[in-house]
């Protein structure tokens, strides 16, 4: 009798802990269903729309996100450089290449919660396309690091994991058909000062 009660309890415990825990884990992952990858950049064009998958819907509800609409823009997040290593706040990176068609774009360095990195300085850890210097072929080279650099400098600060968030506003690529032949800039690690 006691053995039966124990087995029932065991089943229930596995069901509740396993079920609840797996949902919690699935919602914590940055990667997920419905992601589109271009190089190191990931976007969720469907997030926040009624046609999103249940995981995206749960994430939207849990984190209180109000996702950008199709007519507003599309955000890409990068968590690794071209070499496959995780982005670190203490490292220096070069972001270079062409950018797809958009009215303008913004790029910022983000922490784990995808909020902008606190620099403790008046300068934001963010750049926008109206304020960058371009190469003769219209591509852009951006240096991201702690110390001022010539050309386009994206200020970062602190230690630990970092993400780059690149958002295109008023862009044809936000409609899903436009995403097929889009190329995004490469993120190359220059060095780290530990």
């Amino acid at each position: 009798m006691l053995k039966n009660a124990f087995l029932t309890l065991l089943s229930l415990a596995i069901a509740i802990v396993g079920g609840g825990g797996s949902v919690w884990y699935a919602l914590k992952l940055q990667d997920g269903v419905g992601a589109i990858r271009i190089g190191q950049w990931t976007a969720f064009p469907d997030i926040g729309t009624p046609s999103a998958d249940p995981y995206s819907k749960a994430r939207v509800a849990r984190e209180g996100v109000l996702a950008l609409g199709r007519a507003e823009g599309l955000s890409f997040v990068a968590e690794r450089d071209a070499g496959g290593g995780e982005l670190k706040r203490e490292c220096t990176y070069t972001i270079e290449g062409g950018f797809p068609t958009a009215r303008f774009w913004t790029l910022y360095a983000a922490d784990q919660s995808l909020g902008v990195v606190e620099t403790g300085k008046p300068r934001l850890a963010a750049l926008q396309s109206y304020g960058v210097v371009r190469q003769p072929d219209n591509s852009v080279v951006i240096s991201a690091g702690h110390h001022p650099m010539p050309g386009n400098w994206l200020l970062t600060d602190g230690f630990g994991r970092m993400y780059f968030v690149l958002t295109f506003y008023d862009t044809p690529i936000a409609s899903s058909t436009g995403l097929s032949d889009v190329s995004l800039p490469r993120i190359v690690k220059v060095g780290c000062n530990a």
Partner: protein
Amino acid sequence: MRSFYAAMRRLLHAVLLGLLGAGIVHIAVLLLVPEFSERDAWSRLSMASDLYKMTRLDAEAGGAPVVKSVDPLFYATACRFDLGEGMVRIKAPGHVPFWSVSVYDRSGHNIYSFNDHTATGGVLDAVVLTPAQMIDVRKDLPEDLQGAIFVEAPIEEGIFVIRAFVPDDSWKPIVSRFFEQSSCELQDF
């Protein structure tokens, strides 16, 4: 020995049953999270302000941002509305480099969005209403609604968000004023 095997089989049975249950619980919890979340955008906004009241979402207005991960080069403001009480009109006079607008339903799904290129003369003047209210309005369109953008949304409660681009610090006062002058009102008809 035989009783040991029997016990093991029953244990295995219980574990398998537990895993099956875990699958069911996983699906049930996943589908219930949006229903019962107290951290979604609507709940956060309702803690910050009333219906039909513009609330800044960015941290610039003081305090922690109400809704997270707003682009640092953007300001955003939102108001909650209830179409069950009538249609809602959102206006924001003035010009900023770029503004965009989204209408969200109660659970934070983006239903409709547009930007300043869509609006007449780049001025934000929009009305959100249900399809039934739209039929009523079409019968006799009031003079002052002629230039407005009509957003037909098959919802009751919803959130209206305006985002505006702040290219650099010199634009901050202009964009802040744009938001201060914005209004979100229940429209009588």
